[in-house]
């Protein structure tokens, strides 16, 4: 990392550029990532396709052909060189933007049993009881670092190290929708059924993604604060109503 700038730029193939703001999950680096994302919402370039924000980086995808034509580039001035210069300027300016105030969202979760098949394994791994794991998980305050992996899937930070558990060796081919899981230092929820390698500890009673909600299809967005509330199976069934 350069002294003068708090980011590093790397190519990710020939159609994407990775702008790295740090190597750890923490609110300070998140602020830089969020700042860059917010800046890209209003400042792009010809050939820009979209960006993905992750814990520590913003990845910008582009069409090299459109960029070449739009900026009259040739062999001596390659697309990557041109865009890394441009994005470097953007990242510097983004770092000077003011931070935005977060929304707070409470998610009711039924832990363990059929909804959390890996809860016992997680407890065993840490020599804790399942009740202790539930108490630790549901008393945390979590920052939504990013939405990714599948529609509405939140990557949450703030997981207590006492229950941080490595990803499963082989990913499951199908995880039930709304499952809440742990992988390494991360926790989050699966809004839809998808393959994945996380350890599943419970299930959310509310939808995390609804395509019919055209204004806000995703329950969460990057920058939100999340609290999990432990509920019983009965309460879970009441909230779900006729839905599964």
């Amino acid at each position: 990392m350069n002294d003068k700038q708090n980011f590093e730029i790397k190519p990710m193939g020939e159609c994407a550029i990775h702008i790295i703001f740090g190597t750890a999950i923490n609110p300070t680096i998140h602020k830089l990532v969020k700042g860059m994302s917010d800046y890209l919402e209003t400042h792009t370039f010809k050939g820009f396709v979209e960006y993905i924000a992750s814990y520590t980086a913003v990845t910008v995808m582009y069409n090299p052909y459109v960029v070449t034509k739009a900026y009259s580039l040739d062999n001596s001035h390659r697309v990557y060189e041109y865009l890394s210069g441009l994005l470097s300027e953007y990242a510097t300016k983004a770092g000077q933007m003011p931070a935005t105030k977060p929304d707070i969202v409470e998610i009711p979760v039924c832990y363990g049993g059929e909804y959390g098949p890996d809860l016992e394994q997680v407890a065993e791994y840490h020599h804790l009881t399942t009740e202790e794991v539930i108490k630790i998980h549901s008393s945390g305050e979590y920052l939504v670092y990013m939405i990714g992996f599948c529609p509405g899937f939140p990557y949450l930070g703030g997981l207590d190290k006492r229950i941080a558990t490595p990803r499963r060796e082989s990913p499951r081919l199908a995880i039930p929708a709304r499952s809440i899981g742990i992988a390494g230092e991360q926790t989050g929820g699966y809004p839809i059924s998808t393959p994945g390698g996380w350890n599943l500890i419970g299930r959310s009673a509310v939808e995390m993604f609804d395509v019919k909600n055209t204004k806000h299809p995703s329950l969460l967005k990057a920058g939100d604060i999340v609290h999990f509330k432990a509920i019983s199976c009965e309460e879970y069934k009441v909230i779900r109503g006729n839905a599964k």
Partner: protein
Amino acid sequence: MSLKIMRPGLLTTIQDLGRYGYQKIGVLVSGAMDQYSLRLANLLVGNPERQGALEISLTGPTIEFTADTLIAITGADMCPVIDGWPVATLRPVAVKAGSVLKFTGCKSGCRAYLAVAGGFEIPTVMGSQSTYLRAGIGGLEGRALKHGDILETGTPNEYGIQMSRLLLSRGARSFAAAHWCIGVVHTTPARLALPIRITKGLQYDGFTEKSKTDLCTQGFKVTTSSDRMGYRLEGPILKPIEHIEMISEAATLGTVQVPPSGNPIVLLADHQSTAGYPKIAQVSFVDVARVAQYKPGDTIYFKMITNAAAEDLYIKKEQYMENVKIAIAAKL
């Protein structure tokens, strides 16, 4: 004008070039696995390149055309037949009302594309007609085609109308194919034997020297667990120098990631926007279409190239597409 789906085939879905701009809320891009074949099929019937078309995998559908329709079939050689007669691919074909199209076998490649002049009357969801199967978004009700489906087609543009008229003017029983076709098919066995060109992934340096060597000298078999999300490969085990517990970061089309089992996964059209396994390589964009034409049981070889070379390949391919577009337009 419509297509009646009599038999759906293994996996037939509506795809265009993908759903862009929503990866930040985790909505995948989806779209055609072999984008070049989809674009060419559209150009052959006068459609915009990104129009929705049918992506047909391994076992093709049986389709009845209720009206005269201009179509084009590109991609894998799946032996299309209308009323018993073989249908030439890679060119516009005017099909007469009442004809029934079947695909009798997948000889080479894995995915074929069927475009109709005017496209399909399917609503766009978040700007795209592509089907994202796992989330049930887009395409026809968010799912693969099934028996009994009726697909309404749109109105062909001037090119589609004129080309159809031109072909049918020579007289035809069930259909009339153009005498010309586009060349350079990357689904032939000879072309599929060429290595897939890759660039270094973000965590490439974290892998052992043996893994780096094996990656570009040994074959990797496409397993039967492969699908639109990614191809799970089996070959020499790829190992990092020491365990890399990754922090989830962006994944893009063609990312080659390596889970702890050491068997790499090539991420394809329905890839997730972020991934947690170390990335050893990136398939060059132009070769993603070729990966998509491998079938379970096939063996893939990789070849490392520089980012600059990958950029050149991309640009040259786009120049080729522009030239083909002009050549097709001139055929009227």
